[in-house]
């Protein structure tokens, strides 16, 4: 029989190895799932992980998509990881993402059709503020009334989705849209367009922002007192209080940063790749970012890599849908499985497996 035995200290080697092990296990389990669906598992795995980057036919389209998809995932996941490290569970990034997009787009559209260099910066500020304020609701309810931030932040996603529909159908609906839901397309409004910076790369301002967020988060966590307190609060809350960390301030800061970054991600998406506010504008980045954060072991560099990998599964999934007829939902299940395996093998960092022989009494 196998017994778990707590290690005297967390294993660093396993801490690095578990994400790779989890990806491997997910590929195996996913392959089995694809086989049950009647698809060739090897072709499916290849289509998801290899073809988007190296297949001559698709790579030219897929490669830029990698940055387009990874940008928002990384941006959101960096914010979430700060909170998760402190034991503050903002799982409503999807809502903050939507609100950021609405606020940013509304700011831009308010100036339409005026052209000025100031419009995009204003939109960026509005987007970040929108996400931040949306996240302040669970943060303040938590600090003032001790209300569970998990439930509140999540429930606010549904409110944000309804608000998104209301905006697409109401206040922000394009007057020239012939009555169809959806706002004006910001891609056709140069002052508000978050355009590709280098053609054919997918690189836009949101990707730059994500990279900056990675660097800032790295410095914050490894070199700054606030980052130290964040880690303390998650690893030993009483010790954090003893050290002088202020729990309420940490909640507000972590939720604020993650909300602001999610809002930014939403703004860059609506002003760039998506182009407009529509009923189905959000595509689950806020939830997938939770997986990205964990897969990256809540470490900024890890999140950067995890974001790229998760973006690959999105693109590869679409490709597999197109070439192999793999259902879209299977990719969602695949991503969920990845998180399972990751959390499951995570215990290897803190526990050691040991074979025990029974009957030694």
């Amino acid at each position: 029989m196998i017994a778990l035995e707590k290690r005297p200290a967390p294993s660093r080697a396993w801490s690095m190895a578990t994400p790779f092990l989890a990806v491997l296990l997910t590929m195996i389990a996913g392959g089995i799932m694809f086989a049950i669906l009647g698809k060739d598992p090897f072709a499916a795995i290849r289509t998801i992980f290899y073809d988007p980057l190296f297949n001559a036919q698709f790579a030219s389209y897929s490669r830029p998509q990698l940055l387009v998809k990874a940008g928002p995932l990384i941006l959101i996941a960096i914010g979430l990881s700060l909170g998760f490290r402190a034991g503050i569970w903002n799982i409503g990034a999807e809502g903050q993402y939507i609100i950021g997009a609405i606020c940013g787009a509304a700011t831009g559209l308010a100036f339409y059709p005026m052209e000025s260099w100031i419009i995009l910066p204003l939109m960026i500020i509005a987007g970040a503020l929108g996400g931040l304020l949306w996240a302040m609701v669970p943060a303040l309810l938590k600090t003032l009334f001790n209300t569970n931030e998990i439930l509140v932040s999540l429930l606010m996603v549904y409110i944000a989705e309804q608000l998104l529909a209301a905006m697409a159908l109401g206040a922000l609906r394009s007057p020239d849209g012939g009555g169809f839901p959806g706002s004006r397309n910001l891609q056709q409004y140069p002052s508000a367009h978050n355009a590709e910076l280098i053609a054919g790369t997918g690189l836009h301002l949101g990707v730059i922002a994500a990279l900056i967020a990675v660097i800032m988060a790295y410095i914050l966590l490894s070199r700054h007192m606030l980052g130290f307190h964040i880690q303390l609060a998650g690893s030993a809350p009483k010790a954090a209080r003893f050290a002088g960390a202020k729990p309420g301030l940490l909640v507000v800061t972590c939720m604020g940063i993650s909300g602001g970054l999610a809002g930014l991600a939403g703004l860059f998406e609506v002003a760039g790749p998506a182009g407009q506010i529509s009923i189905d504008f959000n595509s689950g980045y806020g939830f997938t970012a939770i997986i990205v954060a964990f897969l990256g072991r809540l470490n900024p560099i890890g999140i950067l890599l995890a974001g790229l990998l998760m973006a690959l599964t999105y693109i590869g999934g679409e490709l597999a849908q197109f070439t192999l007829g793999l259902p879209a939902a299977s990719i969602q299940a695949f991503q969920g499985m990845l998180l399972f395996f990751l959390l499951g093998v995570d215990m290897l960092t803190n526990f050691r497996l040991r074979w025990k022989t029974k009957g030694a009494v």
Partner: protein
Amino acid sequence: MSPLFSANGLTKAYPGVIANEDVSFEIGTGEIHALLGENGAGKSTLVKTIYGLVKPDSGEMTLNGAPFAPPEPRAARSAGVAMVFQHFSLFEALDVAENVALGMENPPKPRALAQRISEVSAAYGLPLDPHRTVGDLSAGERQRVEIIRCLLQDPRLLIMDEPTSVLTPQEVDTLFATLNRLKSEGTSILYISHKLEEIRALCDAATILRRGKVVGRCDPRESSARELAEMMVGTALHRPERDITPPGAPVLEVMNLTLPPASAFGTALKDVSLTVRSGEVFGIGGVAGNGQDELMAALSGERRTDHAAICLDGAGIGALPPRDRRALGICSAPEERLGHAAAPDMSLTQNAMLTGAERRELTRGGFLNWGKSREFAEEVIERFDVRTPGPEEAARALSGGNLQKFVVGREILQSPRVLIVNQPTWGVDAAAAAAIRQALLDLAAGGAAVLVISQDLDELMEIATSFAALNAGRLSEPHPMTELSLDDIGLMLGGMGAETGETAA
């Protein structure tokens, strides 16, 4: 007469440590048998083996002449073995009767059980209301719940694990009367303790454990405390030296501090006043749960109070957060080493940063200097003889004594003006305890004001110059330690004033 219980060659190893090695002993019927040993000597593992919580790697036991190898506590209980745990196995949100029922194999119907509890508690002089919620009970009352839970099963062998650590001297007398009565009824008792005087007063036989092995057997009534201590520790004990220097000017003053409890089952502080002078070790005694944690939190800054209720050199600091207080020279070490004074999963370097940032200037403009923090950790390790591979080791990998030396050393090396420590030697082996006590005395001799909160009266009598007792959130009038007898201290702990015996209202 054949023994009621015998253990033969019990061995149990955990990775890196042999908890019990070839342990053999016998307990006679109606005998109170002491199991004596330091923290970490293997007492807990041994009693868990008897109670069916731990399976030995080798060796066997007999009960009443028949082989005894309980696979789980249930089996031990039905064979007539009952146990009162050191850290109570009670459920705070449940009531007394429910707690008792959970520890029984076939509890009667709730109403009949409540009736039985009342009967037994009256018969043994342990008054208890079966319908009260356990979270509202004092430590002494909680122990009664555990004892009554055991007594209702008519045990042949009752195991008591460090039962007096949470009791006042008067409550100890009541407990001993109960145990002697059980003995006269033919029940055997295995009594685990490291308190020598108690064992000499109560027990008929003693088995002494050191590092997992039996190192001696004796009749404690015929051995001196000194002989027992030397068998237990292995060497002659070093007592801390102290210079009796007259205390200087008041440094830390607490005036009429009142603080509501932090949690549902916490204790409110009521009108607490005290003064600690330069060069003085001020001892605060009291049974756990009488406001020690709350007082500690108020002094360390974890909880804010009236600004003027706590003063340093006459200036109010009650509203300052922990980091500002440290900057002013108030350092502290809470009771719970792992999780409160230190973060278990973090390295010693990181744990040095935890409190050292201000006074050791480990930061600059909010940015951390890990190199300096590592040097600080190394200094603590060297000066306080902390046994560890190095400063990158996680705190939880250290033994209790070594981590406590690190925690206390980390505060002392910040040259505090005031040091507040709660339970400085709780669960620490004798050598480390002596080192820590000596360090506290040295700090005071250097002019600092030292406040020691402890449940260990022997410790306070050894190092404190003044003594006051906490009871239900109130602090007694302080007295010079030399003027107090053990009886006086007992009365103070019970909420009565010393000497005059007036009620501290």
